[in-house]
């Protein structure tokens, strides 16, 4: 598994290197460091999409709802991090003192994750649960409504422009490798999301609650008869989705240095595509899909077509849905009606 992932990243590196040389007008020598830097960036942006995609895939897996509001949950997570770092602790510049930086980062995560997790579970309790047995259209439309409410709450409070997110992680911390400057922040983002994903995987596969989640996703009635509290399990799923999205929001702010009320719309669409690409309902698939989308976006940006990245992602979504609606890792039984 790890070997395949490393090989895939290496292949991407080489492909990007060649692409930069052939189409990007770089020489073969200065294309390599750039490709290396971009690959690390791709890993960090892919990690962010993967964290968001997990929330989509878990919710879809358990109640078959496309939670349109999930992207906005991520956006609120990013705002919460800004509130904590910039607002509460008052740090707006890079922090080079390592212990302090660790405390601030942990603080931002521990501040944002529970709030957003509870918010997501609260939304589920308030609006999705009453509609769980309504015709399919009802919860979907509600999710769209919730998405708009969250966006407009953020718009009302924070205004329509970009708000600066404090980049407390020093961007100039870089490791020189063969002429390339590898950003430590990107590595940090990648490692942090790996830790969260492994924790999630362990939780889902090893613990009692995780088993309850899998059981409820497979067959809600049967698991209810076995004593699994479906409501509690579904609420837990929303909460975990929210927690992961909040973590993605925190690192987004560090990486890009801004937050905006409509951040969740585009990122949400991309993360959803990631979830579908990997096979919706499949946790490993969502991670895989997130990284693939991250690589694709990075590739188009590296070659100077970043404004077409949304278009590209949409084309991929279309192709996946037409030719392999179950996604890369989805089961063949699938969701065709």
């Amino acid at each position, binding site marked *: 598994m790890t070997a395949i992932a490393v090989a895939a990243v290496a292949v991407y590196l080489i492909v990007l290197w060649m692409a930069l040389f052939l189409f990007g007008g770089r020489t073969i020598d200065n294309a390599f460091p750039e490709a290396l830097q971009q690959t690390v960036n791709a890993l960090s942006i892919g990690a962010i999409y993967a964290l968001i995609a997990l929330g989509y895939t878990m919710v879809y897996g358990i109640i078959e709802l496309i939670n349109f509001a999930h992207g906005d949950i991520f956006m609120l997570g990013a705002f919460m991090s800004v509130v904590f770092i910039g607002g509460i602790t008052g740090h707006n510049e890079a922090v080079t003192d390592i212990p302090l930086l660790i405390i601030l980062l942990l603080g931002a995560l521990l501040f944002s994750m529970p709030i957003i997790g509870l918010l997501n579970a609260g939304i589920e309790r308030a609006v999705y649960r009453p509609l769980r047995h309504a*015709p399919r259209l009802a919860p979907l439309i509600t999710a769209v409504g919730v998405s708009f409410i969250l966006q407009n709450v953020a718009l009302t409070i924070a205004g329509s422009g970009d708000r600066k997110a404090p980049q407390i992680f020093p961007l100039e911390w870089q490791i020189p490798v063969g002429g390339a400057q590898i950003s430590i922040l990107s590595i940090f983002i990648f490692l942090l999301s790996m830790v969260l994903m492994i924790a999630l995987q362990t939780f889902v596969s090893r613990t009692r609650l995780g088993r309850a989640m899998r059981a409820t996703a497979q067959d809600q009635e049967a698991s209810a008869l076995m004593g699994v509290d479906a409501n509690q399990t579904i609420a837990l799923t929303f909460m975990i989705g929210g927690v992961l999205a909040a973590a993605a929001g925190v690192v987004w702010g560090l990486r890009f240095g801004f937050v905006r009320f409509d951040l969740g719309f585009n990122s949400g669409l991309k993360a959803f595509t990631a979830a579908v690409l990997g096979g919706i309902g499949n946790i490993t698939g969502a991670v895989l899909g997130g990284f693939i989308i991250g690589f694709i976006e990075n590739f188009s940006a590296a070659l100077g077509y970043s404004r077409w990245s949304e278009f590209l992602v*949409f084309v991929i*979504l279309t192709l996946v849905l037409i030719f392999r609606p179950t996604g890369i890792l989805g089961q063949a039984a699938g*969701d065709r009606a």
Partner: protein
Amino acid sequence: MTATTAVPPAAGRFRSPRARLQAYAIRHRSATIVVSMALITVAMIILPQVPPLSLIQRQSSWFDTFANAGVFILLAMGLNVVVGLAGLLDLGYAAFFAIGAYTYAYSNSPFSQQDLPFLPMLVVGAAVAAVFGIALGAPTLRLRGDYLAIMTLGFGEIVPIVFLNLDKWTEGTNGIGGIFRPEPLPIIGEFSALSPFAYYILMVGIVTVAMILLYRMQDSRIGRAWNAIREDELAAAANGINTVTTKLLAFAIGATTAGFAGVFNASKLTIVSPEQFLFAVSFSVLAMVILGGMGNIWGVAAGAFIVYLIQVVVLKGLNSMVEGLGIPVLDKINFVDYQYLLFGLALVFMMLLRPEGLFPSQRRRRELHIADELAGPIDEPGVIGALGEAPGSADEFGEAAGEDVPGRDR
């Protein structure tokens, strides 16, 4: 006559005048639409001249408002075919609106150096939108409904981005401006920015024709097929309905209607640009359909009219009213900024409390509440007792029973 079977069987000599009127309206639907639209048209010519409305804006501004509202009525009626009749969620409806508008912009602007006649272009624009609708729908409608929602959401997001990015062909952010106004038509006169009367009358005509066609479609074999698919797709397929073609037809008709609206809107605004077609438009139209009452054509039209008036007249009016009062906190609030928050809340609360909308279609109402009806008696304590020591409680068993509710999915 198949149409007469629609009259309630209880009808007899003792019917109230209202019931008789209703029965008449169902039997002669097209005539009813023409007559009521004519009455509404006249009312909307007279009403702006008398106090409450005349205080807000001039008569010609009201015509302008009404003509614009007509665009949204068309959009809502078109989306209603997709969402209300066929039960598919289309979240990128503004894309088809955009395609219709850009088609007209290409046929009638200094940018493309074309000046094609308006009325034929109305049909062409709609046809182009329909082609895109089919192209998007054909692959996705085979999948289940949720995927359609996300695909249309993506499509609605992409179309403005493409218009924005292809600046060589679309003038990017600026959009295509200076679109020629339609040539004067007999009777209704000249189209101009100063006297929107012609636009208003033309819009009334388009809405009337669209409404008649949509009602006839709803009452036809296709309409019944849509009902069947929405309520239980599997059963519909088992009864010989080609579900993909039928859904595709709904999708194409929705796109066509949006195309009409797009051409009209482009000719009226004389400019098209990507930011006219963002997700907020799709969202507003969806809110109109939900508020009006999914599946009820005139209800949806009324919903669109009301929502549009709230958007452009009521919220602005509220602003100037509050400013006049001089209350410290309130006069800083710009109510227009809160419109989408308002619609979001309205959408969620409608879904929770009254999913059938303000003017429900009878059929839709039963469908949306059938879960309550079935789950109701099971929640009674006596039945739960029979379950013995089953883990969980009333809730879960109610849910299990709810699973088999028709129309829940597929």
